[in-house]
């Protein structure tokens, strides 16, 4: 894009570059974010902790958030400079998680001044982790059927019920949670509250998934407390906020379609595992065509993400197109997992052990975990409902005569 740039941005780039050189510990170069994925409950090493503090202090982990709450207070072009300079130095962004991806942007939009002052700075500094209390055993795609009850006890709500698929609940300090405050109504009986996870009425049990890992939990609330000051938005007005938060979640998930899992491209993998013919083409013509299709579709997806960004510039928050992006991005990511597995053959099915390299072992887990992409954050069927009803204006089914 030609609309930013010039000397100011270049000056900012050199500022960021020298700051990264001065503050990023060399021992962490090329390492993944320890706060993401398995083992994120482990204590940080001194270097990891120093890097988290340094970035948090600057607000550069959340560069576009308002400086008043500790964010970077920067524009999109400056944020991309930071991203670029971190990548150049092999540095991860140590500030992340659901607080950054979903809850923070939502609270900035809907929270009171006091709520923002209390909850945003610890997210910016990477001090507190958040989890999402939305789904329940009886409320999956039909999220508004949720039953976790919040009773008004004067200065606080008394919370009773069960949440499921609360990712990272075992490491979370806080939970942003949808609760029922009016049993007589469905969507209009839901409130959005913030619950301290470090209290006696909260019990967390990890759920082992098909990929052999346990990124999600069941969370039980038994006479847990949520202070009244931690009600976000009006009483019984939580559904609007939840929908907004889900938009942020979906735009985060759809991003997986564009970037992918990192690591080598499908083409490079195919050349390595399948080989090439005398003209340099991937040797298996059927596989080659499917690799081409996925690669081209991924490019069209990236072009669309870029277009949506350019078109929505100036608007706040994600556009309606995020509903399309979630399905398109997750289909591509799943297809890429399947192709990777197929390209590796039996070598891509290794579960553990020295017979398989690190990327092969990651592939099988990523393939399995990827099946969740079209389920969480609004299943592909729910996304298709949203597109057909809200964007295309197709009507609801009425009772057949």
């Amino acid at each position, binding site marked *: 894009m030609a609309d930013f740039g010039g000397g100011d941005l270049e000056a900012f780039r050199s500022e960021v570059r020298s700051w990264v050189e001065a503050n990023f510990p060399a021992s962490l170069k090329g390492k993944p974010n320890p706060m993401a994925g398995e083992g994120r409950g482990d204590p940080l090493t001194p270097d990891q902790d120093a890097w988290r503090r340094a970035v948090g202090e600057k607000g550069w982990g959340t560069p576009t958030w308002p400086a008043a709450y500790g964010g970077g207070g920067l524009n999109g072009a400056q944020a991309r400079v930071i991203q670029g300079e971190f990548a150049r130095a092999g540095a991860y962004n140590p500030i992340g998680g659901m607080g950054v991806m979903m809850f923070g942007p939502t609270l900035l939009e809907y929270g009171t001044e006091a709520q923002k002052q209390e909850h945003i700075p610890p997210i910016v500094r990477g001090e507190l982790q958040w989890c999402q209390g939305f789904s329940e055993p009886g409320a999956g795609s039909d999220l508004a059927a949720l039953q976790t009850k919040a009773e008004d006890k004067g200065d606080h709500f008394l919370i009773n019920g069960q949440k499921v698929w609360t990712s990272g609940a075992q490491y979370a300090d806080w939970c942003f949670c949808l609760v029922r405050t009016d049993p007589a109504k469905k969507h209009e009986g839901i409130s959005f509250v913030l619950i301290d996870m470090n209290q006696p009425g909260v019990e967390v049990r990890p759920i082992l998934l098909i990929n052999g890992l346990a990124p999600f939990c069941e969370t039980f609330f038994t006479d847990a407390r949520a202070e009244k000051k931690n009600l976000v938005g009006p009483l019984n007005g939580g559904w609007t906020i939840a929908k907004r938060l889900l938009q942020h979640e979906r735009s985060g998930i759809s991003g997986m379609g564009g970037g992918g899992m990192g690591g080598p491209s499908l*083409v490079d993998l*195919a*050349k390595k595992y399948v080989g*090439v013919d005398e003209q*340099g*083409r*991937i040797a298996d013509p059927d596989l*080659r*065509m499917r*690799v*081409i*299709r996925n*690669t*081209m*579709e991924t*490019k*069209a*997806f990236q*072009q*669309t993400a*870029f*277009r949506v960004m*350019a*078109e929505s510039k100036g608007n706040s928050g994600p556009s309606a*197109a995020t509903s*399309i992006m979630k*399905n*398109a991005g997750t289909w591509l990511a799943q297809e890429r997992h399947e192709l990777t597995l197929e390209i590796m053959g039996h070598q891509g099915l290794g579960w553990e052990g020295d017979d398989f390299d690190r990327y092969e072992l990651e592939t099988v887990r990523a393939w399995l975990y990827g099946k969740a992409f079209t389920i969480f954050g609004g299943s592909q*069927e729910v*996304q*298709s*409902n949203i*597109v*057909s*009803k809200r*964007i*295309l*204006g*197709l*009507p*609801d*089914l*009425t009772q*057949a*005569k």
Partner: protein
Amino acid sequence: MAVLTEEQSMLRDAAKSWVQEKSPVTAFRKMRDSGAELGYDVAAWNEMAEMGWAGVIIPEEYGGSNFGYLSLGLVLEELGRTLTASPLIASGLGAASALILGGSDAQKGEWLPKIADGSAVGALAVDEGPHHRPEKVETTVSGGKLNGKKTFVLEGMAANVFVVSAKDGGKIELYLVKADAPGVTRQKLNLADSRGAANVTFENVAVSDADKLSGGADLLEKTLDRARAGVAAEMLGASLQAFDITLDYLKTRVQFGQVIGSFQALQHRAAKMFTELELSRSAVEAALTAIDNNAPDVPELVSLAKAKMGDTFHLVSNEMVQMHGGIGMTDAHDAGFYLKRARACEAAFGNQAYHRDRFAKINGY
């Protein structure tokens, strides 16, 4: 929709209102029913030329407006909506690109002003069989004589001048050949999409260096990429309109006591089409923008746009017939027109298989 300049928005709006007023699908139907010799309505083409659309990419010194390829794409998208048939792609895009990129001052001076004002029609004569294989050329130039047979030349009956690919000393070159030159014969093809097309035979047609465009095989590819991107823009418009018509039908057709658009089986297919259309628009606009920016990845982006758009138009045109049910099978309904145009556009200047293979080859696999 790409972020447009004010001039581009005005051009698009002008095209939109002209198409709605003067060139609805009924005009295309009338043209088809009349058996128009050229495959388009000459009076409508003259109006388009008067509005300057034939000169959108042509430099101002040659009578054009030099607005660029994205701008021309906006016009083609609007024309595509109602299947407006005209020589704009063959002449104002294809032949004009070859001249702009490879023409001498004399060649440009002779042809570009006439192409820009619509008084002359140019056409690309580059294929020699049922499939687009521009690198396989059996037409030859030897001893000042051009010999060969070109097939499925879009607007071949209307053309005043052909841009002909031929092997000259073993290398591909492009020549300008006047349609009325001795030794040129053309045979009208009646195709399912009712547009103007012809097979053109060149028998001992006299050519000299003054007729040769400079750039050879590279010029051919550059010219074709511009034509492909323009066809993709037309396909985008046609697909969007086919989808809109289908969506309207889903909202009005009643069966089982309710509109059929309330059935989830149809809703999700509609959502899928909408998703594909959004992705396709991005690819088409990115290709046109890359051409305007003279970006190094034009070939790759054009092949992406043509292939993606081909898949999407294919899907939407099939679903248009299927979702309309029996009425969609009748000639009285427009669905058949969109279906026929889809396949013709898919085949034009390389179908999906051609462009997927090309995309991979460009990227080394």
